[in-house]
């Protein structure tokens, strides 16, 4: 891949601005496979032209306008930028493990043009000032867009609703108490009702706390052998069906985070068949790994919800294929090295995911023929933008110029030391994946270019 310098117009260095600000020069992504499921577009060799930060053209070949920067995308896929509706950027509170800036750069490196930051920060992002802080830090980061998610309840304590309206006005795109379930069904019901005024989804971390209490991994044969307390599938499924039923009652939009079991898939299918406003996400790790990863007490395989069984993985793969599960989200959760380097039961939950998501999905879902590239782009770009009502997710003319260029076949080996994220906690370390983002464009400007040598592996 090469980037030809197409003209003399300079950035001037004055507008190093932020995601979403207009680019000074037109950008032509030339000669790639232009793939945009949002409009049924799949052109084997085509161009995408971005002017003034917006999509001016996507489809057939065009000639570069004067002064345009031209990026040769031969052999690459050019798609709407990936959108992650679920990540943890740890700022404010744990800037030692991630900041909005490092998270936004990790996102861009993974091909994400926008991510949604969960509010379980310290202090909790549960008011307009806190939401505004995230939005400002994101502007400074000048990488992927970062959309704040506000808390459902004050302090994520599950007691009193946070001020959804003010948070939305400050930039929040959804509400969630992620990291914890909304234990009270009455609070969840009220949140779904109240959120309707603002047209935002209520994203729930489905975990029945008394069943899951003290659990460190999936409950089953492996947990029995390892002597680790298990979390049964039902802990997730009981809350999933509760939320679906409350969405039916209220007409609110419930979004179920990180679904991990076959039972949850069946419940979501049940809800969608009845026209209930339920959407759902699944993480790359739940689509690729099983509870056996935990064997040897590997803390980088510890997350919540836990890795489940091969049967669950198969059900989730089918659900993301048939659209029962709408989107893939990373649940990117950086932790300090020391925090994972300890007894399994004491290690924190979570793994980083922004920089491995594409490779994991290509390797485990596209290569074996479960997903097409068009479906992959839909689940990673179009559907997330649509269900969270975010800019992007499409290459229609006039849309924001958020584009991902990826090499669908490039093989690369995961080396956590090379992550942009401060987090190194990944179960994929040392594995060879296929599929890698090479150029990430936000608002018509290149915010990430892959540093790896060009060419196919």
């Amino acid at each position, binding site marked *: 891949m090469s980037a030809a310098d197409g003209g003399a117009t300079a950035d001037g260095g004055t507008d190093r601005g932020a995601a979403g600000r207009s680019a000074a020069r037109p950008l032509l992504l030339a000669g790639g496979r232009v793939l945009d499921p949002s409009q049924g577009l799949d052109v084997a060799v085509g161009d995408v032209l971005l002017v003034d930060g917006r999509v001016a053209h996507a489809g057939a070949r065009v000639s570069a306008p004067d002064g345009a920067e031209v990026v040769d995308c031969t052999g690459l896929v050019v798609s709407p930028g990936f959108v992650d509706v679920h990540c943890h950027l740890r700022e404010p509170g744990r800037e030692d493990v991630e900041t909005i800036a490092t998270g936004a750069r990790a996102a861009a490196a993974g091909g994400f043009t926008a991510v949604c930051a969960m509010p379980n920060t310290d202090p909790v992002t549960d008011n307009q000032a806190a939401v505004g802080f995230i939005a400002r830090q994101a502007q400074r980061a000048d990488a992927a867009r970062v959309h704040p998610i506000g808390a459902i309840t004050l302090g994520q304590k599950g007691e009193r609703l946070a001020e959804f309206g003010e948070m939305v006005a400050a930039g929040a795109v959804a509400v969630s108490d992620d990291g914890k379930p909304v234990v009270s069904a009455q609070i969840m019901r009220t949140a779904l009702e109240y959120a309707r005024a603002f047209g935002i989804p209520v994203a729930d971390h489905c975990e029945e706390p008394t069943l899951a209490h003290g659990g460190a991994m999936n*409950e*089953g*044969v492996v*947990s*029995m*052998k*390892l*002597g*680790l*307390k*298990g979390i*049964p599938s039902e802990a997730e499924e009981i809350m999933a069906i509760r939320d679906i039923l409350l969405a039916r009652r209220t007409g609110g939009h419930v979004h179920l985070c990180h679904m991990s079991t076959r039972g949850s898939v069946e419940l979501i299918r049940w809800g969608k068949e009845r026209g209930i406003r339920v959407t759902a996400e699944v993480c790359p790790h739940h689509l690729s790994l099983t509870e056996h990863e935990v064997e*040897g*007490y590997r803390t980088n395989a510890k997350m919540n919800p836990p890795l489940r069984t091969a049967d669950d993985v198969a059900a989730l793969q089918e659900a993301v294929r048939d659209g029962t599960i709408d989107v893939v989200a990373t649940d990117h959760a950086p932790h300090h090295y*020391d925090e994972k*380097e*300890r*007894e*399994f*039961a*004491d290690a924190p939950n979570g793994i980083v995911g922004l920089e491995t998501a594409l490779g994991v999905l290509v390797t485990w879902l596209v290569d074996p023929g479960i997903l097409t590239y068009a479906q992959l782009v839909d689940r990673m770009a179009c559907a997330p933008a649509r269900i969270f009502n975010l800019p992007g997710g499409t290459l229609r003319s006039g849309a924001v110029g958020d584009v991902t260029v990826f090499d669908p076949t490039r093989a690369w080996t995961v080396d956590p030391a090379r992550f942009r994220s401060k987090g190194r906690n990944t179960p994929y370390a040392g594995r060879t994946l296929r599929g890698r983002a090479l150029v990430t464009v936000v608002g018509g400007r290149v915010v990430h270019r892959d540093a790896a040598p060009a060419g196919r592996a």
Partner: protein
Amino acid sequence: MTAARPADRPRAAAPVRLGKDLLALEPLSSEQIQLVLDTAEPFKEISERAIKKVPTLRGQTVVNLFFEASTRTRISFEFAEKRMSADTVSIAASGSSVQKGETLVDTARNLEAMRIDMVVVRHGSSGAAQFLAERIESNVVNAGDGTHEHPTQGLLDLLTLRDHFGSLTGRRVCIVGDVLHSRVARSNVWGLKKMGAEVGVCAPRSLLPNAIDELGVEVFDRVEAAIEWAEALNVLRLQLERMQAGYIPSLREYNRVFGVTRERLDRAPRDVLILHPGPMNRGVEIDSDVADGPHSVILDQVTNGVAVRMAVLYLLAGGRPELAEAAKGGAS
């Protein structure tokens, strides 16, 4: 391949070894378990001598690192070490390493820096022994990790059963009690199955792992049925905390429904051998007249514990089983 070898020639198989650590019985082969049990036999005799000491581990430094309270297991290891002339230090680190402030990995590195040879570790977290073993050069012996395994207890139970039955093959052994939280139960299940015994478990389902049916063991909902089936019962301690945590309604009812009582044993079609890893709750999981009765081998287990631990330490230190007899030298 081996097919061409004459049948009458002894196999030149690779010698069976235990490896660097003893962390669990699950990964061991039956040959490895056999090796420990066979090695323990000559060590039994040492504890019967007037002068209970051999020079086998002279110059070896062993640290007993106990993050959880233990009397019986710690003392058993200490005797095993001292009777083999090892230099030993016992550390009772109360509370978890997290509460203590120092991480487990730092504790391990500090010990290693003092140039030790072996660590015997007891810890409340499953996997702690393996965690340590992967990070230090010294041999690690798991003296019980969380609800995972307690391999030397499993081995001493096997040795005690073997003493009585001669062979474990086809013998029916039932583990009675809190299998869900028991590391002893896990080590017993693996050890017994590998040695060819039939394994049963009996407890209220609330104290059995949900996936127990996938272990290939007989599951008995009623202790009467277990007693009718079994040739030996390994009765587990029922901890008071289980009642407080709501797994069973009361100790009183537990004894009435699941207690191993003389009355129940009297109805058994045969004599049933009684084992208990201790410490016992007399009148809860086991009645006194059973624990002290003619078919109880509970104190034999304790005696065998020292011999098994001597064998384990000896094998990890690099000793070869055929030398175990000779290793007793010096004092004989």
